[in-house]
């Protein structure tokens, strides 16, 4: 069975328990345009990152902008290239929890 899921509506129609169909080999195809759009977005965001230090004034604003762009890029790869957007809720939480823990502990040691 080949399912094409193109957005929230399609995903929402699949109950969490049935998401396993996504993992059966050959069962799920991310639309090709999504891969290309993510690639283009990553390239554009990288160019924006490179221009931040010369266009944005103020060190703290520069850092905030760079970190936001970095998070956007990382999320794009994790959600679409690693297909986390289509994973079960449990796995999604399990993936993001270590990240939140890491950010929390980093903040603690920096203070």
């Amino acid at each position, binding site marked *: 069975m080949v399912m094409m899921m193109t957005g929230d509506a399609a995903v929402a129609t699949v109950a969490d328990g049935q998401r396993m169909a996504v*993992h059966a080999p050959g069962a799920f195809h991310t639309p090709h345009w999504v891969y290309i759009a993510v*690639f283009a977005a990553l390239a554009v965001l990288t160019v924006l990152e490179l221009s931040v230090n010369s266009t944005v004034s103020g060190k703290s604003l520069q850092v905030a902008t760079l970190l936001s762009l970095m998070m956007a890029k990382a999320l794009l790869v994790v959600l679409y290239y*690693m297909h986390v957007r289509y994973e079960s809720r449990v796995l999604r939480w399990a993936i993001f929890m270590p990240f939140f823990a890491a950010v929390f502990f980093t903040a603690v040691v920096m203070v």
Partner: protein
Amino acid sequence: MRGVTPTAEHAHAAAEADGPWPMALALGFATLLTGLVVHWSITIVGALVLGYAVLGYLHQLPGLHQLEGHLLRTPRDRHTLGGTSVRKMGVWMFLFSEILFFAGLIGGALALRVKADGWPEPGEVLNVPLTAANTFILICSSMTMVEALRGAQMGDVRHMRMFLLLTMALGIVFVSIQAKEYMLLFFDEGLRPGSGLYGSTFYIQTGFHGGHVTAGIVALAYVNYRAWKGAYSREDHEGIELMGLYWHFVDVVWIFLFTIVYLI
């Protein structure tokens, strides 16, 4: 319960396939690495266990001519855990530990940096344009990796093989450029791992990432070999998906490192 728990027979069959050697390999490697930071005598114990495990692994093969069949075999189990295949779950568990490993490195470096007296401005020591080009190469390799998976999903073997090969080539280019960058920094700029906090945090963060890319290239060589031998098909290509998870993870780590180490 939706996730099928492996039965005792399945577990037994899986254990029989490889014996205790994968576990022995892991223990040996962990002991060896622990020894590197604790005491040399522990390193020797680890090396001995590792050597014993490798010999045991090879010994259970009746002959080297069976090695190819061993490398090309496809796991037949299709167990799931919470709706996700156990193989994929295993890779994710490995990646969870990797997230915390890199978080320790990056967080530690950040903590040292905010408490340091001075820190070079972006581009003052490091070559940002060269690394930006390298970043683009790694992003391209993520794109080629998903294209390879797409080829497998469509049953287009040629597409899959070509993009798998391209992904590995881009990985090699990335590591080569990083090696060139290291040489320039080490010899021309005089930035050494021992030349202060800046040097040591730079080399340890980017070095561990480069090591991960190198390990990914080795794994990709194996996946490429399997692909050329016809081990993947439209029906069975989980191996490529799992390879992709690791490869994209390494890309995500670089997204973090490039911004934090080079641009901020």
